[in-house]
């Protein structure tokens, strides 16, 4: 049985200040899979997520989300699409003037949910990431790892079909990073949530990926399984792997 495509980019180009960041990118995300996008700094990894969220507009190509062509949507149209997507930004991007409860329940407050329903849903999502106890804390009181777990809880509130993670483990100690990896994998297994994970950290990429794509200079130079990636003879990938091994 063929798997359903939930996100697709077809020949997408993007330039920023006359620099071509993406040069004809093609990408498919299937339901229930973890797709990891690897690449060095400035390769355009995060730009892909920003395009898929409508935070940037591509200069050429088409983008489809849940079967709908979203390429030319205006901001109001994007608000509807984004309801089906969760996003975990680098370092969490929690609203620093709001408590954890208000951060996780932000969407619910905006949609006018009753206080008791908000409390129930927020606690439920925090329980998934093991942080119910910090519900009344402020983001400034949390560690880096806790902030990212709260951000995951916030992304889960809309019951999304897909979650994007931008460098979810960067800057975390190995134990905390592995906790984040475990949570991402748990969401896929228990809730069938598909994910696109952008990272440059190989160890965690291998633990997360059902499929890997490698981005270099705005183009994908590899797509396949972790095993295929490790066996690749592409000079850049060999160098990428070698550098990591030396570290």
């Amino acid at each position, binding site marked *: 049985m063929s798997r359903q495509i939930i996100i697709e980019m077809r020949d997408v180009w993007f330039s920023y200040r006359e620099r071509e960041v993406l040069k004809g990118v093609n990408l498919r995300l299937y339901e229930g899979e973890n797709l990891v996008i690897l690449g060095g700094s400035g390769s355009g990894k995060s730009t892909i997520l920003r395009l898929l*969220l409508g935070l940037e507009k591509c200069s050429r190509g088409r983008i489809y989300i849940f079967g709908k062509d979203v390429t030319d949507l205006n901001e109001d149209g994007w608000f509807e699409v984004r309801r089906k997507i969760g996003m975990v930004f680098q370092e969490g991007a*929690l*609203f620093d003037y709001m408590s954890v409860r208000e951060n996780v329940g932000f969407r619910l407050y905006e949609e006018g949910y009753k206080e008791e329903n908000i409390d129930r849903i927020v606690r439920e999502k925090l329980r998934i990431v093991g942080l119910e106890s910090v519900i009344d804390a402020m983001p400034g009181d949390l560690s880096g790892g806790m902030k990212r777990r709260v951000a995951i809880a916030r992304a889960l509130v809309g019951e999304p079909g897909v979650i994007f993670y931008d460098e979810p483990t960067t800057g975390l100690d190995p134990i905390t990073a592995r906790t984040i990896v475990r949570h991402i994998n748990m969401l896929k297994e228990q809730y069938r949530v598909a994910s696109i994970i952008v990272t440059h950290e190989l160890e965690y990429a291998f633990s997360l990926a059902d499929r890997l794509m490698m981005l270099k200079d705005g183009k994908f130079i590899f797509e396949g399984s972790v095993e295929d990636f490790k066996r690749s003879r592409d000079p850049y990938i060999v160098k990428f792997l070698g550098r990591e091994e030396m570290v």
Partner: protein
Amino acid sequence: MYLLLFHIQNITILFWQLLRRTFSKPFYWRDLLFEMDSLGFASLPITILTGIFLGLVLTLQAAIGVHKIGAVSLVPRAITISLIREIGPVVGSLMIAGRVGSGITSQIGSMKVTYQLDAMRVLGTDPLRKLILPKFLAITIMLPLLIILLCFSGLVSAYFLASVNLNIGAVFFWNEVLRGIKFLDLINNITKSLVFGGIIGLFGNYFGLEVEGGTEGVGRATTTSVIVIFISILAADFILTKIFYEILK
């Protein structure tokens, strides 16, 4: 020159976007009240202190001028006119711009570089409506009220100094103050404060939204924002004074 035109174009677009959102739903009343409190009421100490010292200095300056010609009785009216028409709105706005304008730029700038504004958009909320508009409206509404308070505290401090140093009685002083205040002076005062408040809100937000380059960029934008706000207030003051001068002529 190209950069200046680019900024003017972007500021005009931002102003238009805010204007459209002011008259459409959803409107965040609670956020507006919160900002009126944090930008407006929290500026009370700086406003009152500025008013007190302005009143004291103006009284001394006026006294030096009129003492030689023996016209001490002109002091209350001279202070009233200068405080309400010019010194109050301009100096008060500059003082408050230092606090509020820089605060808005650094807050919005920090939220931008830490992707909080993007996070808000992803969560289905328009940051212009939820964050920017309440700040812009709050300082535009609160500045005229703060400037009126500043002028009043300036007159009170002027009265105390005039009564001690120049032996001017309370009845005479306040009668002269009331005679010195013309309806057009009040319109002048409120119009200037409204425009200056708008400048602080618009430019403070704009430079916050334009921040690039991490925390260093936030610091740079905050400095630029305060300088541009100061110069814009002085330029707008010249234009408005010219308009009122033509009316009063």
